[in-house]
């Protein structure tokens, strides 16, 4: 293959890096987001073509075959995945990226004698392996392959400390003499650390961990760029590491928690442990027709969607209900808690899928003051994000998390599958308040019944 001279190579990599910055910038606004993502994909294509024409490569048929396999597996999965399963797919893609970075670093070990480069290799190995194994555990939790509850055992903190100390020891030896065997040991220790890191994280905090591991993978890629002396990897990896860190903090702030509290909370027994006990206290449950009357004669309705809506695939029905109510002259908005669903912005994606214009999707800070003037707050499959325990019960696992103030609305209607507590496993006092009505059942079935009843009014 004809080789590009280094100046052109550097210019093309620079163009690719600029594309990545524009991509992240574009993702800041709904109007430019899709174009931004396409610019990012173009940058990636440009970079991959550039590497083929700028470095002398052997085994090109094999490499092209491997690229075909990777694309052939990932593209159809990404195209067909249900919107509700998006978070675990992102976790999975993040994990394999971290794994790839670790493998690249492992193979570069024999090519260098420079201790600084070896330091970057050790970093990539460890962080890439943590990201790979940690993402695997988050995938298993979200996919329902294992419990979403925090998994802890008495020796966990000690075991984690031993693993980390051993990793530091192995890392130092690898830096000093470049031992391949110890690099493999380091890889295994990284995998163990990744598993131990994510096991104790409780269900509701998993999205934040995905974001954190995303930042980790970015850092691993940046370090592998230092190993290979490739500026593009350094820039792209660092961009993701930095933006991922900010994003993780933003998500954690939305839940009123610190990242450290989430990662190490369960070590101290303070993570979202909760209980799944079902209370025997009386509640007011009602029929779809009654709910339809409440909604149909209101002036202002705010719909609060949660994961129950996503699981039931009820987003289209919710959108139809909003349209039917608007046709009656009722003002309808959707109030989106930052962490409703399993991932920040998850609800926005689902409702966008159902053609709800994004102007109708109000953020928590914008809409919280409006509940006071709202006739009916319709809570569909959400629980923790409207639980007043976050404000009132200082011992509660979600204490301090900002919530949607649905209790301010004149009437609150919960569409719930059962009286079981939400993801965080805490009872919701609001369910027992006099202004609250419950309609039990699958979110989509309930919405369909309510929709039919509203149309019949």
């Amino acid at each position, binding site marked *: 293959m004809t080789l590009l001279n280094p100046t052109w190579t550097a210019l093309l990599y620079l163009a690719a890096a600029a594309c990545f910055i524009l991509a992240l910038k574009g993702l800041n606004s709904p109007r430019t987001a899709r174009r931004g993502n396409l610019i990012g994909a173009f940058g990636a294509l440009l970079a991959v073509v550039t590497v083929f024409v700028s470095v002398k490569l052997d085994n090109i048929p094999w490499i092209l075959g491997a690229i075909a*396999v*990777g*694309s052939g597996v990932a593209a159809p999965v990404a195209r067909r995945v249900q919107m509700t399963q998006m978070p675990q797919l992102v976790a999975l893609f993040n994990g394999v990226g971290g794994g790839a970075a670790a493998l690249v670093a492992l193979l570069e070990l024999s090519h260098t004698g420079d201790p600084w480069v070896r330091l970057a290799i050790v970093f990539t190995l460890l962080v890439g392996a943590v990201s790979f194994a940690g993402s695997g555990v988050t995938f298993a939790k979200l996919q329902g392959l294992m419990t979403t509850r925090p998994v802890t055992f008495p020796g966990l903190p000690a075991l984690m400390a031993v693993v980390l100390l051993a990793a530091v020891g192995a890392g130092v030896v690898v830096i000093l003499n470049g031992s391949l065997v110890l690099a493999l040991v380091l890889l295994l220790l990284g995998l163990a650390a990744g598993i131990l890191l994510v096991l104790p994280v409780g269900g509701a905090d998993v999205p934040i961990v995905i974001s954190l591991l995303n930042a980790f993978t970015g850092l691993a890629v940046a370090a592998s760029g230092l190993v290979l002396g490739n500026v593009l990897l350094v820039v792209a990896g660092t961009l993701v590491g930095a933006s991922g860190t900010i994003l993780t903090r933003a998500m954690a702030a939305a839940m009123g928690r610190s990242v450290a509290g989430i990662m190490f909370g369960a070590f101290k027994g303070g993570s979202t442990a909760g209980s799944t006990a079902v209370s025997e206290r009386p509640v007011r449950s009602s029929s779809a027709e009654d709910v339809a009357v409440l909604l149909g004669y209101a002036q202002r309705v705010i719909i609060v969607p949660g994961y129950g809506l996503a699981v039931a695939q009820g987003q289209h029905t919710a959108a139809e209900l909003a*349209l039917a109510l608007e046709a009656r002259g009722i003002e309808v908005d959707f109030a989106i808690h*930052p962490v409703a669903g399993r991932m920040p912005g998850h609800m926005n994606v689902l409702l966008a899928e159902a053609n709800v214009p994004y102007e109708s999707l109000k953020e928590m800070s914008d809409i919280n003051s409006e509940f006071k003037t709202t006739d009916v707050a319709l809570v569909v499959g959400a629980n923790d994000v409207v639980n007043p325990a976050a404000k009132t019960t200082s011992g509660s696992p979600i204490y301090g998390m900002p919530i949607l103030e649905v209790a301010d609305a004149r009437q609150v209607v919960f569409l719930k599958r059962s009286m079981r507590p939400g993801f965080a496993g805490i009872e919701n006092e609001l369910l027992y308040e006099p202004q609250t009505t419950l309609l039990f059942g699958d979110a989509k079935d309930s919405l369909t019944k309510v929709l039919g009843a509203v149309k019949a009014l």
Partner: protein
Amino acid sequence: MDGMSLLTITVLAVFVGFEVVSKVSSTLHTPLMSGANAIHGIILVGAIIVAGQAADPWVLVVALLAVVLATANLVGGFVVTDRMLEMFRGRQRPPSNAVVPEDRGSVEPVKKEGRQ
């Protein structure tokens, strides 16, 4: 490239990374995370270089594995982000009877959800 230049580039990239996402609304957190996730799939470039310089078969096998994983990250990441974003539309609601043709009147959705 010498170490000092790489360090300079790294530090500047940190600031760009902080700056570029500091004001993003929570509406777009999921696509942004997914998009950033796709970008680190660019490790594919590193995997290709290592695979292209592999001399012995064992190294080649591991490097090709890295190429497969990195491609999955890169391609899957951009495709899944694009799928999320194609659903973001402005205020141009289609008529209500066109909102969900596949959902109207059907008791059972065609696609079953994998988990309950």
